[in-house]
């Protein structure tokens, strides 16, 4: 909640934009609320750029949940035990649910889900580049749970304190489920690592392929991150990309040891002086290529997403036509009154 003072001054009048004198007062109330770690709520005044940044970030977060269903759903029909199959189905279902929370959060900023999906389908908004990598073996499902969800959690836990209320609250719910998924992924890899030699090799291969892309999930290095400074000032972000990446590496190293797996980085070692692990250079060329659309699965992911949407159009149209006929309140249907959906529309 914003402060009472901020609420008194910072409501945008319904009849139009405030004049410049008001704007300065609104901006001041907004800055004060953010500085005091208060939450900005949908009806509070906010700078246009703050609104635009949040729409971009929340939408891309929602898109990532939706596209992120694909690499894992790829293994639902091949899961090697019924228990694992149930866990995986539940996880993919959770991701669809997370997408729905996040689209709702984005909608509080004055946009619509259809509009956002349209931007995803036309490539005008992005999703996390990690989902452009393929799931080639069953162990990839575990590596995604452990590393990708682990990186996501490291990124997202601070977002539970983000200055925008609806986003922060969505993140609280999402992080709870994500940590559950992450433990399940770790446990899946552990079963493989302690299984047959072939299973162990499958686990190691998956970790080798997912480690570096997971480190790239924290975004470009701080000196190349265009939105970071402003987002930190607005308390949308709380830590820099490189800080979070370092935190993630420090968490993963002991976990990899207890998994009995190695991380594919010859330069990875403890640095006593820094109290952190040093690690090797990230291939930023690969990162930018994937971001530009040239990753291994960019085309496949967006094509499947568009196809599901296009092939589902007749279903959504049917639901809308049915609703138009049957929501007239009297219990009388359009058929009974002789009207058609087209006439009502």
């Amino acid at each position, binding site marked *: 909640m914003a402060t009472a003072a901020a609420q008194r001054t910072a409501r945008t009048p319904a009849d139009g934009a405030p004049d410049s004198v008001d704007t300065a007062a609104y901006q001041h109330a907004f800055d004060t609320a953010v500085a005091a770690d208060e939450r900005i709520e949908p009806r509070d005044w906010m700078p246009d750029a703050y609104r635009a940044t949040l729409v971009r970030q929340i939408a891309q977060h929602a898109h990532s949940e939706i596209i992120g269903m694909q690499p894992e759903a790829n293994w639902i029909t091949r899961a*090697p035990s019924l228990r694992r199959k149930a866990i995986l189905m539940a996880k993919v279902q959770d991701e*669809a649910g997370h997408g729905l929370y996040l689209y709702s959060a984005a909608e509080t900023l004055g946009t619509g889900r259809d509009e956002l999906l349209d931007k995803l389908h036309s490539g005008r908004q992005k999703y996390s580049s990690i989902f452009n990598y393929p799931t080639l073996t069953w162990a990839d499902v575990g590596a995604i749970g452990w590393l990708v969800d682990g990186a996501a959690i490291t990124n997202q836990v601070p977002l539970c304190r983000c200055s925008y209320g609806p986003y922060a609250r969505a993140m609280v719910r999402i992080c709870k489920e994500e940590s559950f998924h992450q433990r399940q992924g770790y446990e899946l890899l552990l079963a493989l690592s302690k299984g047959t030699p072939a299973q162990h090799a499958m686990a190691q291969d998956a970790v080798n392929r997912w480690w570096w892309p997971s480190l790239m999930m924290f975004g470009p290095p701080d000196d190349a991150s265009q939105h970071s400074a402003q987002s930190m000032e607005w308390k949308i972000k709380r830590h820099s990309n490189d800080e979070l990446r370092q935190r993630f590496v420090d968490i993963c190293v002991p976990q990899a040891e207890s998994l009995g797996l190695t991380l594919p980085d010859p330069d990875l070692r403890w640095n006593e002086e820094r109290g952190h692990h040093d690690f090797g250079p990230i291939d930023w060329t690969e990162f930018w290529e994937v971001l530009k659309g040239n990753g291994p699965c960019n085309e496949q992911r967006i094509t499947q997403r568009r196809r599901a949407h296009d092939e589902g159009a007749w279903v959504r149209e049917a639901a809308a036509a049915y609703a138009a006929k049957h929501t007239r309140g009297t219990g009388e249907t359009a058929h009974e009154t002789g009207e058609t959906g087209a006439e009502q529309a």
Partner: protein
Amino acid sequence: MTATGPATVPVTAALALGDDALVLSHRLGEWAGHAPVLEEEVALANIALDLLGQARILLSMAGDEDELAYLREERAFRNLQLVEQPNGDFAHTIARQLYFSTYQQLLYAELAAGDGPFAPLAAKAVKEVAYHRDHAEQWTRRLGDGTETSHERMRHACAALWKFTGEMFQPIEGLETDWTGLDQRWQESVADVLSRATLPLPEGPRTGAWSAGAGRQGLHTEPFGRMLAEMQHLHRSHPGASW
């Protein structure tokens, strides 16, 4: 002796009901990432999970769930041919759901009311199945009474799957049920839903020369073998491994 007490579990019945749930769950799992609207990603996965949960309990009553799911061949599966039918378009999936969930709810309500070995499972499952049936009925009405296109697709789907519906009422060894009465109530319920959805009741035989009781005897349709190949290949590639 089994966990359910002195009464021996009728293995044939546990496999028939378990295989229905397992196979339909698998088909619904194929929708993940392909549904027409995000809410249906959630709903179809939810139904698939309920069915998988039922399958695991039922198969465990008959033996080891993973051995039964992953190491039997096509001729040893006892599921209905209806549940193994490919998803087709959304209307086909909904028609399959309507036919099966209506059957499952009527059957499980009877099993839950009895005192046989399936009563505890049925008592829990019948609540889930009531939701599945509601979901299928609502979509049957939306599609049937939606647009011309959706009406035509739904009509076609109901007609195409009609020939698999008679098999549901072939008696299952180990289940004491009035199968004829069950069939009658099923037909009444489906006729009512279809009429409210402005759809005609399909005509034509509900079983063929080949299909009477076929799935229950391990005689399946062609798409089923391919489905099993995908489902079982990883498990079979690592004999004896745990996951």
